[in-house]
């Protein structure tokens, strides 16, 4: 793939670069927001995750003629990269707690209601991986169940089940937020 990109004629390479620029411009914000939500509200981690995913997308650009299929593939990479990041963060935190007796905190930018944000992040972290991914993809990012199923690599029925359980768990964990339907979101 990479070889193909390098050995393409200058005109084709330029076209691919332009395609990639457009792709980055149209998916940067959504990918960053998705990664941010999946890694627990860490700006730096979210940016690392999407950079890795964009690099992989750049290499695979020639393989995908349709932007939609590339986008599906790209968001799948984002979800996987975010999961890998969380797994390594758990290892690092466990190691740090064992050796230094402290837990490093994510350098999240504090804006809006930081306390509420941390509560939501914590509640999401308590869900299983599938529940968290399904909830973030469908309810927060607006992907359909079918799209989420493709991104997660799981059957639609499983995604629906994850969504139902995630919603139940979050409503129980954030009961005060669930009851107050005033809708004073920022």
């Amino acid at each position, binding site marked *: 793939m990479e070889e193909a990109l390098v050995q393409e004629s200058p005109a084709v390479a330029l076209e691919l670069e332009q395609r990639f620029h457009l792709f980055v411009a149209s998916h940067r*914000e959504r990918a960053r927001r998705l990664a941010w939500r999946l890694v627990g509200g860490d700006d730096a981690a979210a940016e690392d995750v999407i950079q890795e995913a964009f690099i992989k997308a750049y290499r695979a650009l020639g393989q995908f003629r349709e932007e939609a299929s590339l986008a599906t593939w790209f968001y799948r990479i984002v979800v996987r990269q975010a999961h890998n990041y969380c797994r390594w963060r758990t290892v690092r935190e466990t190691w740090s707690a064992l050796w230094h007796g402290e837990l490093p905190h994510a350098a999240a930018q504090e804006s809006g209601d930081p306390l509420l944000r941390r509560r939501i992040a914590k509640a999401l972290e308590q869900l299983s991986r599938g529940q968290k991914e399904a909830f973030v993809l469908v309810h927060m990012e607006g992907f359909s169940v079918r799209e989420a199923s493709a991104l997660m690599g799981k059957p639609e029925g499983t995604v629906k089940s994850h969504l139902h359980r995630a919603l139940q768990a979050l409503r129980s964990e954030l009961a005060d937020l669930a009851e107050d339907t005033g*809708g004073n979101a920022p």
Partner: protein
Amino acid sequence: MTQPRDGWPQLDHVEEQFVRRLAAHYAPKPLTPARRVALDDALWARLQRQPRQTRLTPALATVAVAMLITCLTWSSLFMPPLHDLGSGVSTPAMSSTEPWEYELLYSRELTGTAERDDGAILPDDYLVIARVFLDK
């Protein structure tokens, strides 16, 4: 009930409010133009660096593994075979054992003879001791 959308789970009014609330509160700050430029620059810098490394890395890793396997294979060819430790039969090392000792110890096992005169194969000083203590 809110109007169901095709492909999305149906939520009641309270659930929908709750989900909207979570999504609104749990979102990153939008990128500033300066930050966006910095991100793009970092991405392009990584893309410029990355190809050479990634092209060489699999090849180098394959060569390293192949060399390791070759070294292990060749070194095992020239090493003496290991003794079978699990069989329970110990084999004397011939280099550290005198021939007469070996014959004395193992000839009975090999031939199956119960009685044999060892006088012919024992050294003289052993024979002297044998005469005194064994009354030979």
